[in-house]
């Protein structure tokens, strides 16, 4: 008995750290599994055969083709009532152009805030920053009213323009420009560089990671800006985007889970690719607002 106790104690001393690490790893892996569960389930269901969307089997008893098929994707992309390929194109145009316009106007403003002096500068800057505390829902009704009066319903302008004034973008870029050593600007000015030359020859090369970050964040934000895209588009609009298309599809075929998940996969895939290749830029931008170094 004493021997056993002693050997147990020795064993514990030898392995307790490893055991503890294994335990922590298991907790972490379980949490990651839960976080990825919806994504995993979306992909699995998207390949299920018609009518099997609620099936929870993953491994079929017989051959794979008993449970899985590619026909959801071909059916969705060929659907005339719900042209998902068109929705995909619309989403890309809306999110892409919003990101370009927004980054450009934020860049110009951030340049002025970082490099110029003018009356009321810090006051205006403070006012812009304070506006970030206003919940976005407040703008829905008046922005919609403006859009109808401008005749911008069902149009590119209506979808894109109201969301290009991104205050967070100015914040991000102003910081990036102010981090560039002053001597570089002075050298450029001595050489007689114009504002445009300074912007494109000095700032753009040196702060390109931040510009890319801002572009990506705006793109992702507008890719899933569902509420606004829902109210600016009527169901017969040529500008219906992926999330709106999916919600309309759900309204009509609320039990066609396999097809809904196939459409969801189409909507998620571009974002997934962006994340896999550019996650460094996305994460760094999102964290800059929250942590001060």
């Amino acid at each position, binding site marked *: 008995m004493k021997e056993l106790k002693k050997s147990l104690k020795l064993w514990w001393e030898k392995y307790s750290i490893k055991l503890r*690490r294994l335990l922590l790893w298991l907790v972490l892996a379980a*949490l990651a599994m839960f976080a990825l569960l919806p994504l995993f389930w979306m992909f699995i269901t998207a390949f299920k055969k018609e009518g099997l969307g*609620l099936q929870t089997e993953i491994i079929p008893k017989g051959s794979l083709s008993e449970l899985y098929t590619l026909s959801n994707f071909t059916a969705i992309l060929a659907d005339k009532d719900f042209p998902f390929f068109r929705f995909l194109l619309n989403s890309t145009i809306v999110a892409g152009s919003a990101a370009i316009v927004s980054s450009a106007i934020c860049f*110009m*403003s951030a340049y002025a805030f970082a490099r110029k002096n003018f009356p009321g*500068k810090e006051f205006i800057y403070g006012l812009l920053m304070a506006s970030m505390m206003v919940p976005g829902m407040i703008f829905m009704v008046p922005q919609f009213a403006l859009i109808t009066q401008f005749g911008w319903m069902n149009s590119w302008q209506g979808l894109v323009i109201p969301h290009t*004034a991104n205050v967070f973008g100015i914040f991000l870029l102003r910081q990036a420009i102010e981090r560039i050593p002053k001597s570089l600007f002075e050298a450029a000015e001595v050489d007689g560089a114009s504002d445009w030359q300074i912007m494109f020859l000095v700032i753009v090369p040196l702060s390109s990671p931040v510009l890319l970050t801002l572009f990506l964040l705006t793109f992702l934000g507008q890719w899933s800006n569902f509420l606004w895209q829902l109210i600016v588009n009527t169901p017969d609009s040529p500008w219906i985007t992926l999330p709106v298309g999916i*919600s309309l599809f759900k309204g009509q075929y609320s039990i066609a889970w396999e097809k809904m998940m196939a459409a969801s996969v189409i909507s998620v895939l571009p974002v997934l690719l962006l*994340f896999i290749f550019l996650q460094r830029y996305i994460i760094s931008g999102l964290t800059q607002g929250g942590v*001060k170094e």
Partner: protein
Amino acid sequence: MKSSLRDRLKKFTPFLWLSPFLLVFAVFLAYPMVYSFLISLRKVTWQTDLNAVFSDMRWVGFANYRELLTRADFWWSLIATFLYMLLTIPTGIFLSLVLATLLTENLPGSRFFRSAIFLPNILDMLVIGLVWKLIYSPDGLLDKVLMKAGIEYFHTKGFLGNPLTALAAVALAMVLKGCGFGMVLFMTAMKNISPNIFEAADLDGMTWWQKFRYIRVPLVKPVILFLTITGILGCLNAFTEFFIMTEGNPVMLFAGETVGATRVSGYLLFTRFTEMNYGSAAALSYFLLIFALIVSYINWRFLRDKSV
């Protein structure tokens, strides 16, 4: 004389750089704040010209605000929003903090786990909500798993069809979607903690929990505050997850009226909007604004007191 006028004008040339941004900001963000208030004092009536709704609304003074204050669905929407905050914010912060702590332990595969947990954060809310609706539905994945374990309570209505569980089910889905954001914030903040502190703690024989509770938590307080504020704003804006998962349902009784159990204020605003009750929707948004201003005032006081 001429040159001094030029100098004075020159002071304002930087505004040329600001002008595109300020123009969009003024038209679509600053003016709407005022415009929204004007809309909230008006009402669409049966006489309103449907081709020019917003220029033909009738003046009703503060009637929209008074009407809201007497409605059970308004009060329930505030309570539901508050419950939604309670369900998402503390759990989200706790989970993020635990994840960040685990990820700083240098366990194998940490980089992959970090990316995997962060990923859902940037995925389309509508799509993620839709998948959760599938997982939560009667006969869905979660129900089947629980049935195997002998729990049949959820089998008839699913998780989203039951007024007692619907809000919590949405909250759980959103916590799992959002926790990666808090996690990377905490990780960045923790990198700034000097390792000497932990060495000293180890020498003192502190347990993992004690280190977590007495070293990490106090040092990441600013992140906790930031997540609380953004969480509150997020709950005031919450809409898409309810639109796709519950449509504000299931119905239940509250103060003698039937209300939607998950009809949070953002969703109620949308409902009023689709009923063309624009005045009421605008009035509701002003209540939300007041709430957000109080929160940011407390936040500002909190930060100021700490820096003094």
